[in-house]
């Protein structure tokens, strides 16, 4: 939360410092099956933000007492590599990482068919390799792909993106510099195919109208993100079939 002083984050033509239009996302890359040991994995990049996710399970958890009789336990760890941030991050889990692990888990709970695997654990490990804004939504997107890659049955794929409010204007997919000077940051995660918003936070000050407008920007973008996820998964499995 740095000084919000007289910095301008828009060029004269209304585009952002990196040339994007307000409702334009950064270049997105998605790759699945990037790891050998994990049952499923994905690497997702939104601009310079890079997040790796891996899924193990359904499997018997090491601590047996955590199982739930009628469904699988989802376990999610959102973790940042020490070299992912501008200043080296201590590897011990921060309070922020604890919160985001919960927020991401709760964004996945509505889509994973955990009742098909009672008394097991499905472990989702999210490693932020480079943090340049939007790590939680990029992480959620990577987790969705990794779950699908692991063959875990899901109601729908999820994707995420953050909307920011900068100098009174709403912009899609804010990066770290924008976030530092933003009046508000609103990460959204959703499963468009079942019409559910599964991750929703606002950090900052917005009117209700701004929130709804921003939410619509995010949902429209998530539609596109989830379409990309489907493409990537399809092309992987098409390749496999060849």
């Amino acid at each position, binding site marked *: *939360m*740095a*000084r919000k002083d007289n910095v301008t984050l828009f060029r004269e033509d209304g585009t952002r410092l990196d040339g994007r239009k307000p409702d334009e996302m950064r270049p997105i890359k998605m790759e699945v099956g990037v790891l050998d040991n994990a049952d499923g994995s994905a690497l997702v990049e939104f601009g310079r933000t890079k997040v790796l996710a891996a899924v193990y399970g359904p499997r018997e958890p090491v601590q047996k007492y*955590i199982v*739930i*009789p*009628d*469904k*699988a*336990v*989802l*376990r*999610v*760890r959102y973790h940042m590599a020490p070299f992912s941030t501008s200043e080296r991050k201590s590897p011990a889990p921060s*309070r*922020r990482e*604890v*919160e985001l*692990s*919960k*927020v*991401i*888990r*709760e*964004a996945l*709970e*509505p889509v994973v068919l*955990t009742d098909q695997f009672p008394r097991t654990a499905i472990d989702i490990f999210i490693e932020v390799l480079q943090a340049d804004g939007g790590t939680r939504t990029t992480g959620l997107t990577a987790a969705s792909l990794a779950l699908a890659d692991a063959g875990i049955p899901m109601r729908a794929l999820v994707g995420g993106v953050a909307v920011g409010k900068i100098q009174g204007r709403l912009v899609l997919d804010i990066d770290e510099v924008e976030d530092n000077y933003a009046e*508000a940051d*609103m990460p959204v995660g*959703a*499963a468009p195919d*079942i*019409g*559910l*918003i*599964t*991750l*929703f*936070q*606002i*950090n*900052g*000050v*917005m*009117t*209700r109208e701004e*929130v*709804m407008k921003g*939410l*619509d920007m995010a*949902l429209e973008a998530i539609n596109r993100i989830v379409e990309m996820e489907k493409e990537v998964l399809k092309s992987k499995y098409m390749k496999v079939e060849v």
Partner: protein
Amino acid sequence: MSMTPFRVPVVPTLKKETFISLYRKGMRIDDRDLFTPRKIEIETGVIEKAEGSALVKLGNTKVLAGVKIEVGTPFKDTPNQGVLTVHAEFVPLASPVFEPGPPDENAIELARVIDRSLREVGAVDLESLVIREGEKVWIVWVDLYVIDHDGNLFDASMLAAMAALRTAKLPDYEEYETGEIEVLKDKSQGPLKINHTVVTVTTAKVGDYIIVDPTLDEETIADSRMVVAVDEQGRIVGLQKTGEAGYTREEIQKVFNISQGAAKVYFKSLEEALARKG
């Protein structure tokens, strides 16, 4: 690592149906309608040795907030601001399921949501907390102590935090030639400067219903919750979806509608308690 919580007992399905059938009639088990918070009692100045304090009872939920103000160093990137830190503890006397130990993910989430909602809108005037720029500032600690858990810890905690902050006194100090600062605990410079007042409104989604200020019983059978922080101007200054289900766009609209009304109730209770205090 965040883990799907195990809800004891597994039987709430039956209870859920009972609750929903009441909601259908616009009623709740404790005789409230769906959109009204429980009875609110706010008592300030309960911890005389703290710079500010409040005990909030929201139905049977009880949260104590204490504000301590100490001298410290500012963050490197905000040399001209004091520091606000919110910390929450779910001490084991508050509930049979709370365990001794460091804050779990629920306590951390609560503290961070309260913290952000206060910080983002600038509720506490941090600029007024500088003693020597870049070197010495006041650190404002808000400690939330849940002592009886009957649901909706967010709203009770925010009310307690806000009541404690609004009644907090900034200590006086003496500066020695060596540059050292001695805090004069018994003298005050006057009240802590507050720019905005914030409340959160928590609604739970149970089946197709959105209800305000859920009890613990209701939280147990709820699908999900939404915490909306608003300031005295009606602006949204923070929001957190918490819980295992998703929301449709329409449900979110509905949440905002419902939250507006409840916020007014909270503001009224808070201002009345503070006015009583003087």
